[in-house]
């Protein structure tokens, strides 16, 4: 059977179970778009290619499947770089398909030509320039396999226009076998026995869980492990939802804006079991005294994560879910003594830290951003899928919306991309049409990809946007206030659009709250409205995110108010 490159691409995407593509057409991919119109694949036309990648990313995180995005060559391709880098830092499986100028023009500075494989090399898990239509089917199959296996990540496929147009005899690619790529899923059992021994002697253990727990679907296994072993749990930003925030063993988030008890526990613990984390500098602060009294066990599927930032006594390379399953089994067989009694002193000490009340605030006559998030949590009963932009809005969302389940907190953690939240919300809403999806935004961040409002309206995606509007680039302003003698250099957003009118201009609903007593009403009205809504909350302008650990300081040196 003779098929064109475009037909092979569509056939292979359908075989991979792709039902939705986020993209933007152009000359180099016009034939792919022509072919796609003949399939059942749904295409979401975004307004900027950056939006397409973040939407594919949000789709992947909300659904647990590979997100797919399709763009043209040159500027189409370069516009995806930020989104690719964000997915890479957060280990999100996406496949980005870029068009390329015809093979014979490559290297000639042709119209809309760019070496996207070269540009993205440092921020993809892998990438391909397809040179022959005969390779296309295998490359697509490989790309999906690489994106979703091991430590997941973005894979880019660059396809020249002539490769798309050439017809070849189609051959089904066989089983993918890469001699150079064999992720380790099953842990070394000897190391697990060592962990059991450490559990026997530890007096003040804690678990530090991260995004890897969510990616490997180890939610239940982690909860079983923590409850059986009676060990308190903290998570990184990426790990929020990996352990129920309503569980008595939950410490809150760790790190720069982590809770007091979580950071104090880190300093005092004698055993830290780190699972699916990479010890980011926003978590550790000053590394040489991070958890300095503790033996550290580190479980991760990616060997490069282990001992990259923090010395580790027991390294375990393996999938979080499989490793925790084994550990739970070993723990059931081992005699760990009366754990409730053993841990009571430690858990009591932690309770004492809890009363330090590091997340308190006073709602007075100006709206406090924290209050908006708490009300949102109440009204959605914690069941919404929350996406965020980056900055204060992101941290308040992490601190005041409590996550009980994985897949409900979608944020650009590693790269910290302003403009991530709205397109990610669009992707998440496509993946979960029946869920409430809310983008928590700042007035600065939302303006970075505000054009995607048109996408939400065009496809009737009822995303809700909560803008915590303080007229500042709030997080940078906060740093300037605390560490630069209040020299607010270039952080005052003197001119912003009227977000209510802007929503209306896009054909969406716009609502505003300027007083605390209006907050609940605006939220309930916004949440119950069909279709996309922007809710503009005029919040206290100079509110700061607390607690805070200054960058590079030990994580116990916290500014509490």
């Amino acid at each position, binding site marked *: 059977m003779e098929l064109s490159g475009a037909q092979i691409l569509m056939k292979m995407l359908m075989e991979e179970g792709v039902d939705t593509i986020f993209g933007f057409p152009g000359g180099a991919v016009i034939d792919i778009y022509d072919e796609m119109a003949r399939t059942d694949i749904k295409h979401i036309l975004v307004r900027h290619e950056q939006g397409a990648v973040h939407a594919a990313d949000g789709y992947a995180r909300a659904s647990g499947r590979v997100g797919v995005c399709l763009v043209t060559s040159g500027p189409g391709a370069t516009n995806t770089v930020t989104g690719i880098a964000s997915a890479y830092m957060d280990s999100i499986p996406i496949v980005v398909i870029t068009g390329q100028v015809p093979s014979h023009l490559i290297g000639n500075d042709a119209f809309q030509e760019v070496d996207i494989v070269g540009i993205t090399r440092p921020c993809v898990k892998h990438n391909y320039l397809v040179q022959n239509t005969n390779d296309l089917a295998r490359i697509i199959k490989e790309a999906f396999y690489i994106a979703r296996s091991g430590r997941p990540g973005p894979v880019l496929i660059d396809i020249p226009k002539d490769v798309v147009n050439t017809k070849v005899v189609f051959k089904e690619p066989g089983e993918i076998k*890469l*001699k*150079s*790529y064999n992720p380790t899923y099953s842990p070394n059992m000897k190391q697990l026995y060592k962990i059991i021994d450490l559990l026997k002697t530890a007096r003040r253990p804690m678990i530090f869980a991260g995004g890897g727990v969510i990616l490997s679907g180890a939610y239940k296994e982690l909860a079983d492990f923590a409850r059986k072993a009676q060990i308190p749990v903290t998570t990184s930003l990426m790990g929020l939802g990996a352990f129920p925030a309503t569980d008595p063993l939950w410490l809150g988030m760790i790190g720069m804006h982590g809770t007091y008890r979580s950071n104090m526990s880190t300093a005092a613990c004698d055993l830290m079991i780190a699972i699916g984390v990479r010890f980011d500098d926003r978590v550790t602060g000053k590394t040489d005294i991070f958890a300095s009294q503790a033996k550290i066990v580190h479980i991760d599927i*990616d*060997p*490069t994560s282990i*001992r*990259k930032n923090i010395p580790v006594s027991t390294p375990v390379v393996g999938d979080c879910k499989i490793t925790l399953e084994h550990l739970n089994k070993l723990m059931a067989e081992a005699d760990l003594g009366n754990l409730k009694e053993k841990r009571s002193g430690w858990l009591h000490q932690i309770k004492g830290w809890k009363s330090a009340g590091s997340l308190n605030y006073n709602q007075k006559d100006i709206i406090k951003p924290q209050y908006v998030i708490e009300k949102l949590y109440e009204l959605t009963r914690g069941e919404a899928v929350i996406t965020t932009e980056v900055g204060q809005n992101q941290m308040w969302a992490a601190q005041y919306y409590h996550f009980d389940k994985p897949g409900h907190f979608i944020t650009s953690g590693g790269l910290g991309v302003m403009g991530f939240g709205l397109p990610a919300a669009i992707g998440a809403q496509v993946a979960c049409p029946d869920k409430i999806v809310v983008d928590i935004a700042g007035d600065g961040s939302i303006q970075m990809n505000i054009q995607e409002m048109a996408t939400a309206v065009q496809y009737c995606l009822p995303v809700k946007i909560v803008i915590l509007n303080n007229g500042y680039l709030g997080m940078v302003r906060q740093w300037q206030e605390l560490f630069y003698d209040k020299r607010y250099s270039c952080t005052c957003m003197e001119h912003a659009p009227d977000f209510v009118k802007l929503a209306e201009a896009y054909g969406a609903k716009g609502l505003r709250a300027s007083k605390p007593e209006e907050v609940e009403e605006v939220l309930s009205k916004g949440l119950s409205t069909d279709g996309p809504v922007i809710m503009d909350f005029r919040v206290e302008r100079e509110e700061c995110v607390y607690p805070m650990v200054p960058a590079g300081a030990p994580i116990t040196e916290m500014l509490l108010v």
Partner: protein
Amino acid sequence: MTEEKHILSILVDNQPGVLSRISGLFSGRGFNIESLCVAETIDPNISRLTIVTKGNMPVVEQIKKQLNKLINVIKVHELTGSKYVHREMALIKVNAKQENRAEILRIVDIFRCKVVDVGLDHYTIEVTGDEGKMEAILTLLRPIGIKEIAKTGTIALFREPK
């Protein structure tokens, strides 16, 4: 922690772009490359890279892990600490005036290297050996006058057990 020299022998898929993936990994993560040699192996689908790098133990461990993580990297061997043979090669163009010619040939003879090009006022010498030998011959030739020099990096292989 002390920085030490490490020789890594890396087998990779022989595909365009692989070398830049590897060199990009080093530059992007702030690792150091002292020398890098690459060529096809006996299997035309596989190339061997020999990289000489410097760093303390945690850094070298991280370099090896990061290299292994690249999809096109088949195997990373560290040669340092085991038995191996290693060589570099240099082409050295020296001033060869009448009065120096005999001395240069004596040096070539002592170092068991070869003259591969002769002119009225130059010799080009081919020399292979380890770093020490390179340094030694350069020390002797420098006073005579070196016009130009081209050097490869280190290539190396394990010694098989006898």
